[in-house]
């Protein structure tokens, strides 16, 4: 990024330096004023009062509310991650199949689940399916299945882009040494695609972690439910609880994002990513920035 920043403007001379200093001061004052205004608003509504923040210093708050919620979030996310990776690989390979009776249904499934809001899907699984099966739906599995169908479909598209980015020579060489279609896919294409798409995959996992918060809406006791709703109801400190929960989410996702950045740098440095990585990056970019809740 720094390279772009540097080309957009000249190295500042005396006048530009003075202008930048003025801008810094003006904006800095504006920012401080804004922060103070927020602080004052909170003060006015008594949100800084000690009793509201005190619960966070007690271990029972963490043991009874935040940690079980965090555990529920992480466990749902972990199960859904594994399942959506499997779903993604299966449907990516399916969509690339040479048989229309495999590729067309696989494509339809992927396109459908990518276009349907995850919340709608979870509502259907949690409230709708019990009417069909005549037995209650576990809320954990409603969340996990919903997450898997949506994120798996997005990952399927990422894998497909990755597989198509592997140079043709790779599969031609594999066919030339006598491998079958399945072997080429399994031993040659998927491993290289997975490596090229690793940053995209990790970014999608961040999306998945954030999406577990939707589980709150159907009553899954995850971090938002336990750490904000229940905790806030218990101590009457909703704003404080929401801020603490936000910090936990940010730390969780930030570490995943850092991992993605590290993997991306490592892949680039190794220089072994498939040659067609650049166009993939673009297509993948759209998957990365897709801000599902």
């Amino acid at each position: 990024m720094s390279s772009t920043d540097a080309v957009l403007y000249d190295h500042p001379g005396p006048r530009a330096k003075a202008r930048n200093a003025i801008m810094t001061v003006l904006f800095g004052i504006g920012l401080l004023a804004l922060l103070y205004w927020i602080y004052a608003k909170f003060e006015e509504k008594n949100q800084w009062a000690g009793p509201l923040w005190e619960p966070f210093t007690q271990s029972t708050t963490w043991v009874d509310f935040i940690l079980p919620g965090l555990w529920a979030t992480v466990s749902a996310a972990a199960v859904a991650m594994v399942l959506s990776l499997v779903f993604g690989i299966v449907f990516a390979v399916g969509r690339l199949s040479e048989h229309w009776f495999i590729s067309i249904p696989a494509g339809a499934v992927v396109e459908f689940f990518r276009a349907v809001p995850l919340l709608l899907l979870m509502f259907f699984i949690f409230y709708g399916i019990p009417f069909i099966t005549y037995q209650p739906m576990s809320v954990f599995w409603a969340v996990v299945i919903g997450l898997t169908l949506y994120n798996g479909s997005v990952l399927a598209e990422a894998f497909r882009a990755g597989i198509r980015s592997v140079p043709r020579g790779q599969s031609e060489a594999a066919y030339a040494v006598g491998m079958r279609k399945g072997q080429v896919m399994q031993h040659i294409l998927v491993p290289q695609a997975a490596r090229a798409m690793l940053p995209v995959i990790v970014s999608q996992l961040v999306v998945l972690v954030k999406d577990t918060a939707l589980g709150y809406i159907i009553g899954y006791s995850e971090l938002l439910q336990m750490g904000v709703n229940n905790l806030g109801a218990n101590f009457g400190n909703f704003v404080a609880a929401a801020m603490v929960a936000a910090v936990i989410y940010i730390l969780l996702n930030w570490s995943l994002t850092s991992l993605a950045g590290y993997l991306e740098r490592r892949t680039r440095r190794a220089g072994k990513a498939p040659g067609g990585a650049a166009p993939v990056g673009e297509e993948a970019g759209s998957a990365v920035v897709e801000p599902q809740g």
Partner: protein
Amino acid sequence: MDVFSDPANFDEYTTGFLWILKLTAAGGFAAFVLGVVLAAMRVSPVPVLRGFGAAWVNLFRNTPLTLIIFFCYFGLYTNLGLVLSDELELNNFWLGVVGLAVYTAAFVCEAIRSGINTVDAGQAEAARAIGMTFFQNLRIVILPQAGRAVVAPLGSILIALCKNATIVGTIGLAESSNAMKNLINFNGDQVIPIFLVFAGTFAVVLIPTGYGFGWLANRLAVKR
């Protein structure tokens, strides 16, 4: 399909999608404007502005939208007393728009910033060489070219925004996901048709939109 022959139910369905459309339009507009401003901040020569942009992006991009919308309602409205409209439903709507906008703006900002990175460095250097200032450079040379590169990502962001609009249902707006939940609860015998109609409406609108943006991006792409 009997469910939808009842005018009350059909009305619930149309009202739900009307809210989604309004949320998408208002949230998308606000997020776009905010995102462009944030992107300009992130590439500006002033460190404080860059820091502010980066903080915004990292803060909102890593927080679940559900928590943000939730905070808009219980934090801003219930606890801090921010009222955006006297009418309860409209107030919820605008609180939802605020949540969607601040969240989506972070993604718009990142998309535009990566679009700026696709513009050849020589373009900016040439602009500087003929004496353009930072703003002239950005407005006349860089952003028009970056704009073509960000059509596809912005398209996915808009589509995601439309889907995310369902989350505003959490704070009591009768949008389509709430409408579907209600219809399912009162018509347990027709669960699948109800789901297919609601999900199908999203799919029928959003899948062609996605392909449309793909086509447009391809058409507008700077051929280098």
